[in-house]
Structures are given as C-alpha cells and as structure tokens.
C-alpha cells in the first residue's frame, strides 16, 4: 500500500489513511453523480487536492476536508454542466450542411446571374446594383444620374426585365435563333403591351419553340389577368369556347347583350377560319381602352395564309362549304378590322369592337 506511489509515502507519514479516504470520498461522490467514469474522476481529483493540501490540514481533519472538497467539486461540475446546457444554443450551427450537388447548383445559379448581369448595359447594371444590392433609393439615384425618381424606377423596371431574360437564356444555355427573340422575350418580361403588339409577340410564340420555352416563367409572373385571355384553337369545340369567353369578357366590361352577341358571332367566324384552313392557331382576347372600353381580338395562325385578301373579303367567296361570309361578315360586325397574311406563313386577324356609351 505504502509502496503504491511515492507521493503517498509523505501522506502516510502525516497519518493519512488513503484507502479509508478513498472509500469515504467514493461514498460521498457516487450517490451524487450518475456517471461512474465521472465519479472516478471526481474521486481522483478530490484525493489529489486533499493530498496536495496535506500539510495545511490539521491532523485527523483529512476526512472532513475530503468530504467538503468532494462536494465542492461535484457542485462546480454541476454548475459547469448547467452553464454549458444554458449556453448550448449559442454554439448551435443553424446552417445545415449543404449537399455537394446543391453547392454546385448554387454556384451555377450565381454564375448564370453573373453572366446575365455582365450582358446588361453599363448603365443598367450600375443602377440595378446600386438599388438592389446597395439599397440606394430611386430619388438619390435620380440626383446622381440627373433623372427624376420615376425615370429611374422605369429604368430599373426595364433592367430587371432584361436581367430576367438574360438569366433564363444563360441558365437554359441557349442562344436565341433569331434577332427578334430577345426583343420579344424582353417585351414579355417587361409586360409592355404596346411593344408586344408592335413585335407581334403572339405570332412569334407560335413559330419559335425556344421563345415558348423561355417565356413560360416570364408569363407566369403576369398570368391571371381577367382582362386578357388566350385560347388555343385546334378543334370545333374550341370555337364555342372562344366565343363564350369573349362574350363573358365583353359583358364584364359593360357591353350590351346585343353587342356581346355580335362580338361572339365575329369570333365564331374567325375562329372557324383557323380550324378550317390552318388547323392550329390561337385567339387572344383583351380589353383595350382609349378613353372608352373595347374588346380586341387577335386571331393568329400559322396556316397556308391567304393569297388574295381582297378576294377573301368579298361576300360569298368561299373555299369550303361555308357561306363565304367569314371575313367580310366579321368585318361588318366589328368596328376595327385588319387582316395581315403571308402565303405559307399564316394569317393574323385583328379586330376591335368599341363599347357604345349609350348602352350604359
């Protein structure tokens, strides 16, 4: 026993009964600590301290001293654990480790965005970054560029629209097949109706598969507009769908029942022409305003086209078993009427009926 470790020899000289001390401390510690390994550690620690303080402790008082030391150690351990438990949340790493592929995707997105940004004009990029990243407001940007805040907002709107298009092009890794595509996509992204009309975006979308694919996310932003409807025309049943849709829209903006019927009749004629001659096309119905309300119908197809529009506009001219009243009849029913056709490329009919104020 005395031979166990050299330091104990000194302790034995001072008359400390180490085995008894060990069992004493063990009795104190064990019931208070669940974990046996921790209990052993505490016993060891207590003994070390008691022996270290050997000469400062009165003879015979080593037992009580050991008990107090053990209790103190236990309570400080408990405090330490308690503190750790209380502060655990500060150490929590809320950022879930990302998957490798996710990081890759993020990286691709960032890269696509960077490429898209680089494709913008210097001015657009500067304005966009100043506003979106640095949080500079439009009026201070206006002062900086010598513009009104409204003009800056409009520029931001255009820059964002352009960025959306470029981002989609980059992330889809496509290059527009025609010069027109970018302009069309941009006008769709910006929701610029006038520009869309000028570019005849609807027709372009019938022809260009890439633009259809790219424009889908752009159009989703502006969908659900009750004042605009696009109906695909492929079958007989679509004619009925189209004329019912236009009737509903017309009566929603206050057209009389008679005028709604007139518009529906014109739509029926025009939609039938698509089914008969072109097989595939679409009809867009839109509420227009120029101080008064109107319903505009644009019917497009990519069919064979009309070789002689003047002849087609003559009453009774028919190439199928109709009455030959399709185009001329619809023209009589509507206030504005225009046919554009190119042989081999298709036909676009645009017609508007204005609301007569006397009906309201």
């Amino acid at each position, binding site marked *: 026993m005395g031979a166990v470790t050299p330091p104990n020899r000194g302790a034995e000289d001072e008359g400390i009964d180490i085995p008894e001390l060990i069992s004493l401390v063990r009795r104190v510690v064990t019931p208070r600590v669940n974990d046996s390994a921790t209990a052993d550690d505490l016993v060891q620690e207590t003994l070390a301290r008691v022996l270290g303080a050997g000469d400062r402790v009165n003879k015979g008082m080593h037992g009580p001293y050991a008990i107090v030391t053990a209790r103190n150690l236990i309570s400080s351990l408990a405090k330490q654990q308690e503190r750790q438990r209380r502060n655990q949340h500060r150490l929590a790493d809320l950022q879930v480790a990302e998957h490798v592929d996710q990081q890759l995707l993020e990286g691709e997105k960032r890269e696509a965005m960077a490429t898209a940004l680089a494709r913008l004009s210097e001015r657009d990029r500067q304005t966009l970054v100043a506003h979106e990243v640095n949080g500079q407001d439009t009026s201070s940007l206006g002062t900086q560029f010598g513009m009104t805040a409204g003009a800056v907002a409009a520029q931001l709107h255009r820059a964002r629209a352009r960025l959306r298009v470029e981002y989609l092009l980059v992330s889809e890794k496509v290059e527009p097949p025609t010069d027109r595509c970018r302009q069309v996509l941009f006008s769709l992204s910006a929701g610029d109706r006038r520009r869309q009309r000028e570019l005849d975006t609807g027709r372009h979308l019938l022809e260009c598969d890439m633009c259809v694919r790219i424009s889908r996310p752009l159009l989703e932003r502006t969908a659900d507009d009750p004042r605009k409807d696009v109906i695909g025309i492929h*079958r*007989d*049943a679509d*004619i*009925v769908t189209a*004329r*019912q849709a236009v*009737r509903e829209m017309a009566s929603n903006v206050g057209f009389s*029942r*008679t005028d*709604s*019927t*007139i518009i*529906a*009749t*014109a739509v*029926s*004629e025009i939609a*039938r022409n698509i*089914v008969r001659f072109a097989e595939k096309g679409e009809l867009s119905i839109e509420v227009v305003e120029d101080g008064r309300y109107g319903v505009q119908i644009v019917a497009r197809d990519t069919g064979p086209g009309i070789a002689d529009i003047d002849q087609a506009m003559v*009453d009774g001219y028919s190439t199928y*078993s*109709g*009455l*030959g*009243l*399709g185009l*001329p*009849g*619809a023209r*009589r*029913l509507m206030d504005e009427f225009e046919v554009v056709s190119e042989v081999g490329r298709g036909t676009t009919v645009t017609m508007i009926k204005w609301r007569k104020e006397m009906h309201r």
Partner: protein
Amino acid sequence: MDSGPALVSILQQGSTLIASIHTALDDSQLIRFQRDLIEQIGARRSRGVIIDVAALDVLDSFGLRTLRDIAEMARLRGAITVLVGIQPDVALAMVELGLGTGSIETALDLEEGLAYLGVGVTASTVNHRPEHKMSPWG
C-alpha cells in the same frame, strides 16, 4: 350526345318533329344533329319540322348554313321546316353579319311554329304567357 345531358332533343307530335337545341353546339355537333334529324324525318314520316334554336348563343354562317341545309333536305323528303326561337340579339347579329334565313320559314316561338304548320293545338292547351321562354343568358 355521346355522354352527359342531351344537347338536342327530337320529339314527335303527330306528323310534326320538334327538335330543340339545348345548348351551344360546335360544328361537328351541328352536323350530327343534321344527320339525326334527316333520318328521323324518314323514320317517323314527318310532314313538318320545328327547330327551336332559342338556346343557341350564336348563329353564325356555319350554323345557319347547316340549318338551311336541313330545311332543304327536309323539303326534298317532303317536310316543311320552321325555325323558331331566334333571340333578338342573335337576330341582330345575323343581320349585321349579312345572313338571311333564305328559304327557311321562321316563327317567333314554338307555339307560333306549330300554328304555322297547322298542327292542331288549341288555345286551351297552350298557356299564353306574355314573356317568351326563359332567356338562355339570364
């Protein structure tokens, strides 16, 4: 006619067929209606046909042409056709479109149509209502 509620009903009253169109018909449905009706004229040995189009939302060139063809085919098979129930709005649109009913006879409503054909409906069996039937557009 394939499924769901009937789009058209063809009823017989004596030697008269009464065909009512219940809803907007598309072109192929109209063609089927034409075929069915012409068949029925022969099968039922009808002398008169009344077509009630009150529920049609639109009568465009194709619709009218189909109805005219029906009338002509019926005539060739020995029956007279009367078109009834053209709504005022539809009538106006037809005129603006440039459509006439040509040789088809027309009557205001079913009652007038039956009277035109000389079908024996006495005043006691028909209620005279000031209003025509319910408008399909409410």
